[in-house]
């Protein structure tokens, strides 16, 4: 068996946790319990888990506006996350960040980012920190197909190649930047090829296939750890929900999402594969399903019960200069 059952169960649990977390976020948003802009990553779980499952807390990831999955895959506490998304005082960022700004430095998660292309330059810095200090830690940035066209990302790719930084660039191509298709916004035929032109190994993978994505990430992570510099992975995937929760998604094809849920659901594909290969048994995964449901339900409950920040104290806490 190429994969240990414990590993596969951990993968399944993490993917399922992201799925249920996102589905509950959608429900709680619609119920008025979550304010602001929330970008759900359901459908894209396999990439986050494949990329992060073998990282340590000393490895650094930088995420995007669609960052819940990356946070969970990197080990952030889902209860602290839910509280943060609800704007509560005991959230991971004390309610000051929200969905688009979750960070957990103890877990090596340096932030979701509401600025498209904000993360990759920062991850270069994290990689430079590791390289200069001579550790074997790596940095990993997440970008989207839309984000791939931001100047900061293109600069970061070249910069990483020039400085041979231990930085794995993950590009989640879900076909859309908001309501604009990736095919329209990318001037090239292949993002993977374009990234390769910066002078680093660059792969395309089917991001709904956990195993293919995991193996590509392993190659890139190993190169980074061995001092061989950056790599890029374009992982094609599907966004099951809107750009943001509440997006009417008029731009999507008629049966596109329904079809994708039947044919390209990374969780179903994973489950089918491990059952077909007899790597895991269904009851073990069913048990995880139940545990995850309970965990997320308790995260929501704790989120709802958590106290709001106190403006008299928290509004001006953590400013650099006070006036």
């Amino acid at each position: 068996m190429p994969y240990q059952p414990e590993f596969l169960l951990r993968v399944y649990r993490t993917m399922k946790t992201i799925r249920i977390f996102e589905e509950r976020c959608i429900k709680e948003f619609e119920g008025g319990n979550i304010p602001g802009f929330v970008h759900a990553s359901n459908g894209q779980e396999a990439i986050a888990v494949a990329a992060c499952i073998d990282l340590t807390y000393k490895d650094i990831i930088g995420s995007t506006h669609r960052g819940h999955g990356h946070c969970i895959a990197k080990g952030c506490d889902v209860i602290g996350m839910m509280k943060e998304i609800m704007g509560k005082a005991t959230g991971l960022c004390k309610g000051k960040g929200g969905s688009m700004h979750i960070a957990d430095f103890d877990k090596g998660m340096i932030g979701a980012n509401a600025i498209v292309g904000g993360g990759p330059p920062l991850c270069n810095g994290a990689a430079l920190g590791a390289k200069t200090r001579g550790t074997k830690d790596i940095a990993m940035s997440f970008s989207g197909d839309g984000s791939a066209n931001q100047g900061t990302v293109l600069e970061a790719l070249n910069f990483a190649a020039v400085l041979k930084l231990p930085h794995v660039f993950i590009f989640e191509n879900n076909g859309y930047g908001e309501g604009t298709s990736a095919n329209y916004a990318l001037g090239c035929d292949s993002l993977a090829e374009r990234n390769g032109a910066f002078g680093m190994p660059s792969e395309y993978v089917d991001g709904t296939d956990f195993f293919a994505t995991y193996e590509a990430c392993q190659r890139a992570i190993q190169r980074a750890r061995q001092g061989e510099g950056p790599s890029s992975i374009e992982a094609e995937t599907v966004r099951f929900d809107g750009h943001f929760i509440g997006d009417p998604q008029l731009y999507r094809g008629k049966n596109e999402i329904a079809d994708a849920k039947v044919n390209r659901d990374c969780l179903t594909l994973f489950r089918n594969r491990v059952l077909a290969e007899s790597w895991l048994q269904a009851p073990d995964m069913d048990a995880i399903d139940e545990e995850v449901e309970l965990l997320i339900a308790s995260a929501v409950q704790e989120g709802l019960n958590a106290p709001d920040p106190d403006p008299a104290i928290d509004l001006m806490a953590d400013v650099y200069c006070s006036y």
Partner: protein
Amino acid sequence: MTTTPTSGTSSLKTYREAINDALRQEMRRDPTVIILGEEVSGGAGCAGQDDAYGGVFGVTKGLMPEFGRERVIDTPISESAIIGAAAGAANNGLRPVAELMFFDFIGVCFDQIFNQAAKFRYMFGGKARTPMVIRGTVGAGWRAGAQHSNMLHPVVTHIPGLKVVMPSNAYDAKGLLIQAIRDDDPVLFLEHKIMYDLKCEVPDEPYTIPFGEAAFPRQGTDVTIVAISNMVTRAIEAADLLAKEGISCDVIDPRTVSPLDEESILESVEVTGRLVIVDEAHERCSLAADISSIVAEKGFSSLRAPIRKVTAPHAPVPFSPVLEDAYVPSVDRIVNAVRDVLGA
């Protein structure tokens, strides 16, 4: 002078509709006017509906179907390229209206604005014309967090070569945007995202409102309140509350912060002797500080009390609703500041 049509119809329009109206009418009038930005139409290259967004706030909805993708251009997420293209096209026969979905994104394209477009006319000895508009949404209140809620007008008002327009209602929005599009210099047109659904009576015909002319939504003699953008609504609310106590406030809405109608502010303070400035930006190096210094310098002899500023605190905009609500200047704070300058 405002060129309000004296005849013709008008109707209740939202701030969003008024801006859409201005864009549509100018695009009909002048084929060199184009729009470019992210999702200004939406649905580019997609299997579903075209014009799926019409801007994420729906402001440019319907323009692409009327004017086509050649003139209403959905761009990649590349703000430097968007603004640079607008500036370059403005030098080359077009009147682009570029959209920054959130004005916070000037962070990734500021060079093209302040060191390029803003400087062309002066730096090239008066030979360059850069008739471009950058529309962008500003302000807190949407629970959008620290990176999507900034009030950065003080940053751009500081730059010579930029005109900065901050309409506080639908009527002004339409007239000022038409003026902005016809202006031969770079104009930043900043729309407070809280105001998109606010309605007022707006003429159906095109009209312009000149830059540097304040509006006076309330007239009074006890205290001058200068308020910017969304804060005008709150200042009016405060003035109406105070009026019930017999306190008469002169509310001034500069409408454009560069150029700034200093004269109207100074004339008002000459009468009232008291000034409260309300702005959602932070106080340090802000428009509030700027107006305060102008009045302290040029209207010192009129002042009968220290100037009071009601601004956001010196902190990023917090996400949590309770914190964000405490962050944005409230009607209460304005009322208290007015009482304060009156010694009441």
